[in-house]
C-alpha cells in the first residue's frame, strides 16, 4: 500500500536496503527470474517471495495483498480524473508525474546495473538488449530469443569466475 511510485523501487528499498531480507544480488536474481517470465514483474515477485515463505498460499496472499487496496485507490483517482481532467492544473500535474515515473523505471534499471560492475562483460548483454529493442524495434519475444544464448554463455563464465 505504501508503494508510491510503483512497487518495484519500494520493494527493493524495503527488502534489500531496509530489512535486508535479501541481498542486492539475490533481489536482482529473483527479479531476473520474474522478468524473464512474461507478465507483471511485481506480481511475479509477489508470487516468488510469497511462495518462498509460505508456498502456494503465501503466493496467493502476497498477490491479493499487493492488489486489492491499490486497485480501490486507483479507481477513486480514475473517477476524479474523469471529472477534472479538462483542468490545465490537472494536465500539468500528470505531465510532471509521468516524466518522473519514467525516470523511476529507468533508475531501477541503472541500480540493478551496478551489480554487473563486478563482471563487466555482462554489460554486453544489457547493451545488445537495448539495441535490439530500441534501435531495431524487434518484438520482445525475438529480443529474448536473440540475446538469451549470449546471456547464458556470459553468465556461465561469470558464475565460474566469481
Amino acid at each position, binding site marked *: 500500500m505504501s508503494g508510491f511510485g510503483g512497487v*518495484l523501487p519500494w520493494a527493493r528499498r524495503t527488502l534489500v536496503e531496509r530489512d535486508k531480507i535479501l541481498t542486492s544480488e539475490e533481489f536482482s536474481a529473483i527479479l*531476473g527470474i520474474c522478468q524473464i517470465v512474461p507478465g507483471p514483474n511485481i506480481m511475479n515477485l509477489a*508470487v516468488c517471495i510469497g511462495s518462498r515463505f509460505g508456498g502456494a498460499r503465501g503466493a496467493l496472499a502476497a498477490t491479493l495483498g499487493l492488489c486489492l487496496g491499490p486497485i480501490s485507490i486507483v479507481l477513486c483517482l480514475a473517477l476524479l480524473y474523469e471529472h477534472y481532467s479538462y483542468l490545465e492544473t490537472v494536465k500539468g500535474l500528470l505531465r510532471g508525474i*509521468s*516524466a518522473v515515473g*519514467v525516470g523511476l523505471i529507468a*533508475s531501477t534499471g541503472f541500480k540493478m546495473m551496478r551489480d554487473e560492475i563486478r563482471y563487466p562483460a555482462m554489460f554486453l548483454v544489457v547493451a545488445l538488449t537495448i539495441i535490439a529493442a530500441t534501435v531495431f524495434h524487434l518484438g520482445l519475444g525475438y529480443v529474448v530469443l536473440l540475446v538469451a544464448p549470449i546471456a547464458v554463455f556470459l553468465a556461465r563464465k561469470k558464475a565460474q569466475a566469481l
Partner: protein
Amino acid sequence: MSILLSLFLELSAFSLIAFGGVNALLPVLFDLAVNQKHWIDVQTFSDYFAIAQAAPGPNFMTVTLIGWHIYGVLGALLATFAVSWPSSIMVYYLQRFITGMKNPLSKKTIQYAAAALAIGLVLSSAFQIALQINHSLAAYILTIGTIAITLLTRWHPLYLIAIGGALGVLGFV
C-alpha cells in the same frame, strides 16, 4: 460483453509475451491499446500512466485503468486478473524448479543471465516510453533529474513524484 471478452483475451495474450514485466512492455501495451484496438488515445494513456505511478501500489495498474476506461469496475478487475494469471502460474513453477536445482553453477548461470536481460529490457522500455509521454525539453530534464537523484541519494520516490507534480502544476513541464 464481447468487448470484455476481447479485453480478457488480448491482455492474457499480452501477459504471455510480456517479457520483462509490464513496465518493460509499456511500449507494446501502448501499441495494443492506442494503435491497434483504439481503446484509449495517446493523452489518456500517458495520463493513466501518471495516475498509476502516483497511486500507491503496483504501477502496472495502467492496465487496470485501461480496463476501467472500457468497462468500469468489472473491466478494471478483469484487466488486472487477465494480465496476471498466466505469468503467476508460470513463475510459481519456474521458481520452484530453479530453487530446486542441485547444481549451483547452473543456478547461478540462469540467475545472472536473467538479471542482465531484465536490466536491458527495463532500460529500453523507459527509453521508448519516455519518447511517447515526454513532449517537452523540460519533461526530459525532469526524467533525467529523477534518474540522477535516485542514483545519488536515498530519497523516497514519493518526494520526486510530488516535486514532478508540483513543477507540472506550476507550468514548467
